[in-house]
């Protein structure tokens, strides 16, 4: 996980000193905190499944297989994008990156149609997807301006970690709301 630009290196005889890069470590910590927030919401959801006397029930939801497929594929495309940038292929990076943006946007549009049912987990998750898409969009703009180079692979990778997390959360939400909840 270490990128050379961020490690501390000190030549002191035989001592070779390398520590993990701060970007991914910070992102993993943030993901842990976010995961804890989602856990609490999932627990609340499972606690109340079938108990509500007035609210909407999950049975009115249709299975969002297509948009789920889009979101999960976007994890693969962002992974390929980061790999392409690391190997110094800006053209294929841009292609994969825009693909990720599109897949995420399709997912968000699909969720928006479900949103009138107001499921809080989905709302919270959609918020995270939106944040992710804004960040991915920002990087896309910079890429079009030819500002994203091979040495930025570390930063882009941190963003991809966040995106993988958003996808993983969707797997949990899907399981809890659409599989267990129905």
């Amino acid at each position, binding site marked *: 996980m270490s990128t050379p630009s961020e490690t501390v290196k000190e030549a*002191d005889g035989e001592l070779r000193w390398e520590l993990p890069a701060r970007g991914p470590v910070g992102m993993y910590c943030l993901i842990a*905190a976010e995961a*804890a927030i989602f856990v*609490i919401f999932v627990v609340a959801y499972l606690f109340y499944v079938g108990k509500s006397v007035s609210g909407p029930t999950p049975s009115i939801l249709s299975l969002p297989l297509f948009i789920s497929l889009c979101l999960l594929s976007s994890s693969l495309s962002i992974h390929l994008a980061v790999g392409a940038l690391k190997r110094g292929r800006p053209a294929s990076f841009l292609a994969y990156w825009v693909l990720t943006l599109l897949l995420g946007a399709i997912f968000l549009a699909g969720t928006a149609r479900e949103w009138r049912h107001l499921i809080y987990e989905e709302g*919270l998750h959609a918020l995270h997807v939106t944040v992710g898409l804004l960040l991915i969009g920002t990087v896309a703009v910079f890429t079009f301006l030819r500002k994203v180079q091979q040495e930025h692979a570390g930063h882009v990778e941190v963003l991809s970690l966040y995106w993988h997390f958003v996808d993983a959360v969707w797997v949990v939400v899907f399981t809890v709301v659409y599989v267990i909840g129905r």
Partner: protein
Amino acid sequence: MSTETTGWTTPADATVPLVDRLHGWVTTVDHKRLGILYILYALFFLVVGGIEATLLRIQLIRPHNAFLSPEVFNQLFTMHGTTMIFFVAMPLVFGFANYLVPLMIGARDMAFPRLNAFSFWMTAFGGFVLYFSVVGGYGLYGMATAPDVGWFAYAPLTAKTFSPGHSTDFWTLSLLVSGVGSIGTAVNLITTIICLRCPGMTLGKMPLLAWLNLAMAVLVVLAVSPLTAAQLMLVVDRYLGGHFFDTQAGGSAVLWMHFFWVFGHPEVYVLVIPAFAFASEIIPVFSRKAIFGYPVMVAATLAICFISMSVWAHHMFTVGMTSLSNTFFVLSTMAIAVPTGIKIFNWLATMWGGKISFRTPMLFSTAFLFQFLTAGLTGVMLSSAPFNWQLSGSYFVVAHFHYVIVGGILFMAFAAFYYWFPKVSGRMYDERLGKLHFWLFTIGFHLTFDCMHVPGLLGMPRRIYTYEPGRGWDVWNLLVTVGVLFQGVAVLIFVANLILSYLRGPLAGSDPWDAWTLEWSTSSPPPEYNFAVLPVVRSRRPLWDLKHPEDPDWKYE
């Protein structure tokens, strides 16, 4: 290794106008300045929360006292609890961590300096929002009120029906905002400790303070986030027609208790682990011995960290859980006493046979050992569910957790203040005033909190604004309030000592305690960049190695 002593303001700096200097503090991203801001912020709210406690105690000094109205009493104990936990203890812990961790691991700053500043200002804004409720949060009678739902805000007290107006919303927002700040600081601390240690400082050679703050930060990430989630749900309940905690519509009040205490109990360890960290640095230096059982100390810390995530429902024995849950939480709560006991024995073994010098930091540390032990013992008593059924919600519990927070955490915070004051300010504190502070505060502490156990055992419930005479509570309540007087005077002496010593104290030099960790190798106060050349360490006591090249630690570790 001797470094010249420079003042806080260099001559060039002294000519800078006051506005520019203040601007420098507001826009700073330097971990030392942010640490000082955190600590000053905490000190301010310590005085505020202390005044609130004093008012509460004046009301309870005798039966049928009419000093405060019941409504104001409810607001004051809510504000006292919320202030002391979120705006005194947390910023104090983060302030010391911010200041000390980069210096002790040989780094020039935190991993994310701007995130660091953001986190501080979020915390600061949280405190402002909480106290803005006093003018902005019109409540039950259509007038301005502070939150009055207690610091753990049990449902359904927080429902719109029972908390009209916005006082509860100010409470919720204040905790949400400061929670974001706390998580930011925790992420920053973990990343700093993992990624920015100076060459040679493997995890096994890290000062215990860094290890323990790493454990604290992990707990913040895992424990404060559930509180944030629960507060979001409360907002949904109050404004978006949700029924998470609304029993009338199929919600559950018990769920709030679980969510709150999933945060609330690890929070105790978030606060006490840094106190352990101070003890683990201060006791060895004033005993002139290396810490006893370093690996075991680390292991015990991680064990506490782990177990503390699974003890929360011991706050809920009286709610009525299944006997299986009761048994689980009794056993897990008792189990956490084991690693804590190991720590106490390790500190004692460090003192054993050492050349102990009872300067003010060591006095506070020694008192901490006794008091934290006592607090732990009443904790084991309360962990037993049948005993807890009798005393939960009584003054015995109030006495127990104040013993932990004041007798344990605040005493070690005072020790840390005196120990690192020369490093931060460049000047020595006044030893006589320090000792006076210690003795007055210790007498006041024991008068207040030893005596507080007794009315609890005699059945006095917490949070009552007055009581009937002749139940055997009267004299104990009088003694409890008298103790507050001693503590108040002691804190004033403490603040006076800090201010006077900062202005007129003798120069301390870079290493007044002949200590062994890296912060003492910098000038007092340290330069903005901390280390001109990044240090290279070979043992847990790098300064010992420098001072004693003939007998360095790394030969034995």
